[in-house]
């Protein structure tokens, strides 16, 4: 069971990495508009993106 001493800290580090990545994506505005992008793919005008 010694592997736990590696795996559990590893999982904690992973959670922090995921958290940091998500935090960054929120900060950079990727979640500001949750509805617009869904409609935008339907618009023919590619330049609007």
């Amino acid at each position, binding site marked *: 069971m010694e592997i736990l001493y590696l795996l559990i800290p590893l*999982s904690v580090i992973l959670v922090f990495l995921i958290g940091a990545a*998500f*935090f960054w994506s*929120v900060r950079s505005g990727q979640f500001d508009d949750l509805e617009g992008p869904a409609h935008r793919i339907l618009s023919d005008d590619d330049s609007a993106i």
Partner: protein
Amino acid sequence: MGAEAARPALADFVAESACFHCGERNPPSSPWRAAVDGAERRFCCPGCLAIARTIRAAGLDRFYHQRERADTTPVEPASGEALAILADSAEAGGLVTHLAGGLRETSLLIDGIRCGACVWLLESYLAGQPGVVQASVNLATHRARIRWDAQRATLAGVLGAIEAIGYRAHPYDPSRREAQMRREWRALLARTALALLAMMQVMMFALPAYTSADGIEAQHRALLEWASLVLTLPAVLYCASPFFAGAWRDVRVRKLGMDVPVAIGIGGAFVASAWSTIGNGGPVYYDSVTMFIALLSLARLFELHARRRAGEAIEAIARDLPETADRLLDPADASRTERVAACSLRLGDRIRVPAGASIAADGTVVDGRSSVEEAMLTGESWPRAKKVGDRVLAASINRESPLIVRVDAAGEATAVAALARMVEDAANRRPAIARTADRVAGHFVAALLAIAAATAAAWWYLEPARALAVTLAVLVVSCPCALSLATPATLAAAAGASARRRIFAVRSDAWETLARVTHVVFDKTGTLTKGRLSLSGVEPLAGHSRTQCVALATALEAGSAHPIAEALQRELAPARVADGIVAVPGNGVEAIVGGRPHRFGRPEWVGALHGQPVPALADAVAADAIAVALGNDTGWIAWFTFADDLRPGAATLVGELREMGLAVSLLSGDRTATVAHVAQAIGIADFRGDARPAAKLETIASLQRAGAVVAMVGDGINDAPSLARADVSLSFGSAATLTQWTADVILADDDLRGVVDSISRSRKTLRVIRQNLCWAFGYNVVAIPLAATGHLTPLAAAIGMSFSSLLVVANALRLARVAPREAASERSAV
């Protein structure tokens, strides 16, 4: 003053070491002293001294008694020059309204407002300034509305006065609100997601302890606990910080909100767990802590999401007004124009409004004839003819031909802006159901804290060794998880499910009110009808077929943006060509087809072409229809009627609402005959036409006085005040944006079924909330005495609490499930 004098000298002691105005530490032997509020006070800097002297000189020392705390952040005083530039740019940006009698008015956003005392100080001080006629400050929105006499005061002077007492004012620009909303959204989204992440992982670490039959080895348990601690710490410090901030705010104003027990619960459980983990042994509650934070944040996120949509609607009202206008360089010459910002228009300017464009300001037509669509403002669904001397309103759309308009009011002085203010006022007067809920929660929390304190005291007296564990058990078991989750979790589930049906509750108390509704009041325009004309009948008079007549009319109306032309184009008649089309505003169109002059429009005008009398069937036209004649120089060709269509399902809707035991009425600004016709068609007995916004307000108020709970389904901007006055209001997503701002519930699908759906859903939601509250209450009645008498260990308490919360959340999630029948109808609708 007796009570003041009897107070301990603490305030005076603080006054010695801290700045009397801002609370910052004073430099040793501060040279800045002044006699304020009856004693010698010291200050940290000349800025604070000047502010205090100003306040003293205005006789407003009472501010220092009334304010809640002394940490007003001192502002760097801006130079007079900077203020002058700020004032000038506000003038240039159209943020200053010119009123009659040389008065000016502007909206300001004020930084540094902390409490009611700040509002009092600002209002009293500004009102005492020479030339300031009126100053009103809103504590919640930090907005001030200032009115002053341009002869005796300047905007720069007003801004300077605000700075002199330690605040900073910005002329209000709506986009700042947008930025603030975005910041709030990002912060809450990050908090919620990180809390959910922490919850997920901590749950996984907690699982072995719950599932292993004979316990896990001590060193493994320690490892898992440490890992949980590392994950829970940021969740508590970052994700839960709004709860702590809220609790701190509540405590400071000596008020008990739900944030207080939440903060105590989170803080207490975390500290106790950490205490156990760092080597003292004992139970840990990391899983409960993270779950609690995550679920509460999630509930708040749903609420903010709905509010944000409303905020976007507020921004959108600015979009209804065109941003630019074509101003005539020379009032006499309509050919040369310059493009200017709509907000920089001045009284008396002349602007050119091309056909199809919306009008930038309120004004009077000085040249041209056209028809103008004012549905947004007046609720009248078809365009009105405008000729020289007629008034036109900002945000209405010029349909036919160019107009030259003399500006009578621009920017904040327009009718649209006045309506917006009316809405704001009405919204501010809304009975605050939320406050009642808070007060009840406060009582519960107070009782809870009292029980915990009594338990602690009793056990301290009986058995000091167990006092902490038992008190913690009481706090944890009652940790108003279930109770405080009962409502938000249910509301969040309901909001999520309705969002899938594209129904958005903007205010969180909307569901509660909606469930109690007894009256549903409809507005006709665009609510029960489609809000657009369609061809309802053709009566050929000269032996032509229906298709031929429609084709001829379509050719005449080619290229027009008039609603009648749009209705004809939807008929898809075979193409014909008309030459030399001339639109005669107020009458119709004239053109050459097949070598003969044809007219399509007002019967009398068409009749003038051939001189024959108007046929008798003109009288047979239904009350809600528009009759249009088609003729050439030899006689009548056909008779067209156009009507505003009922929305599909309008009659079913009224029937279903009746079945739910609701009274239905129709209140419209349209002609009474039209309203009567629509009411008859869908089976509403109680209707009223020709209702102006004020009359609508009065009707709703009288219903409310009679004890009714009124739900208003509205559309045009003219409905906005009544939407705000009604107990709860619904508006369609396609409706004018201002009403979305006021509406409590937005039906984004533009489908009438949403009305029934949202009411039945709200009733279901309220039922689940009641079940949850009953459960939480019953659970507390059983569990708290058990815990207080020491029959529950903190671990058992935590399991009980988690179980209770899970049950509540699971019950709430029943609402999130879209019933199979609904799902099927959704599919068939698509």
